[in-house]
């Protein structure tokens, strides 16, 4: 018996799918923000004097980077209520994405900070810049510029990873797709189309990141 592809179900479900895209973007943006906070705090702690604090950060990074996100989100799903955080699935997903992305952000930001030579800071002072100017123009901007490609690449990865949050039924594109699939039994058509919606989302993000890069980092280095 032949199977006829029928994409009309996808077309009828398009408003719901587009809202799912909005959910995915919201989840990803919230996760990125949390990841950046964890990243910066982690880098600050990683250079702390206390050895146990440093070990804590290194341990956190290694554990997160060497276990699957699916296992991490399941663990947090059951662990957060035990520490008194009774959250809905979407909030749990944001924390899981933030924790996961944060571990990668720590490694990336640390590389950026290390890329600034001490002599550059001293040269800044010698030129008569004050502390705030040195931090802003000589440390922060070049460091951000140096890590920008890897950081934005990691953010796009985080956005794609957010599809796994459907496993705890957070509100995002994949869980919307799963609901439509179970209503219509058109698994292939739905998932095939949703894959391209994700592709559009990553292109949109890439474009946005390129515009930001062009606006803020387009100056010659030599």
């Amino acid at each position, binding site marked *: 018996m032949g199977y006829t592809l029928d994409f009309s179900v996808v077309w009828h479900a398009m408003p719901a799918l587009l809202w799912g895209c909005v959910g995915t973007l919201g989840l990803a943006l919230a996760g990125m923000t949390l990841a950046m906070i964890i990243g910066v705090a982690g880098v600050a702690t990683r250079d702390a004097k206390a050895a146990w604090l440093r070990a804590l950060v290194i341990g956190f990074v*290694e554990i997160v980077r*060497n*276990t699957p996100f699916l296992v991490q989100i399941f*663990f947090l799903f059951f662990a957060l209520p035990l520490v008194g955080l009774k959250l809905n699935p979407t909030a749990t997903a944001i924390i899981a994405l933030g924790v996961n992305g944060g571990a990668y952000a720590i490694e990336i930001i640390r590389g950026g900070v290390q890329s600034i030579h001490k002599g550059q800071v001293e040269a800044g002072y010698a030129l008569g810049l004050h502390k705030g100017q040195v931090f802003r123009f000589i440390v922060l901007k070049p460091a951000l510029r140096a890590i920008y490609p890897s950081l934005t690449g990691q953010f796009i990865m985080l956005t*794609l990873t957010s*599809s*796994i949050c459907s496993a705890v039924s957070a509100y995002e594109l994949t869980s919307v797709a799963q609901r439509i699939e179970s209503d219509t039994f058109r698994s*292939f058509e739905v998932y095939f189309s949703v894959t391209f919606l994700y592709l559009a989302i990553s292109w949109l993000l890439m474009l946005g990141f390129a515009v930001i890069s062009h606006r803020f980092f387009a100056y010659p280095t030599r």
Partner: protein
Amino acid sequence: MVPHFGLPEFGFLLRGLQWTVLLTLVAFAGGCTAGLAIALLRTCGHKGVEWITRIYIGIFQGTPLLLQLFVVYYGLALTGLKLDAFVAVAIGFTVNASAFLGEIWRGAIQAVPRGQTEAAMALGLHYSSRMRDIVLPQAIRISLPATIGYLVQLIKGTSLAAIVGFIELARAGQIVSNQTFQPLLVFGVVGAMYFVLCWPLSWWGSRMEARLALASQR
């Protein structure tokens, strides 16, 4: 009566771990073969072919692994072939690996100094000999850290087979967690098993990266 997490449950997780390892090995072997072909096509010098492989790689890098798995899994079901769940997910991971390894090796091939290819041409070597004896051995060395990095990603990625119902380590963990009502303990053990698998590879990869960086400084 609710069973506690004991030796039989641990054994069940270990059997899941076996499937995770097997799935990774099959996908990695398949991905290496197809990925090499992709990398060679991507650097063959023919504009059209290079564009097609570039789009192929772009699609896999720009979409979630979970959705790729769904599309392959349900797409294969539509063809009418009665495939085992293991074969279906293995094919899914293989195509994903082919794109990512293809891109890693494309970069490595292009990182081999152009003079090497030119010298080989001047010596009258043909394409196959030039690639096999001159470019690829050097490219493999350059690409090793990134290839190992991808292998770690692949091991972690196989956990997504759990969502389409294939019983590997993550799915085994879900099952045991539902039976014992000890989710923290179970997912802690499952996480530890993944860690034991991935961490030595990550460590080896970053050590090799540091050594290569040192060698290129000289």
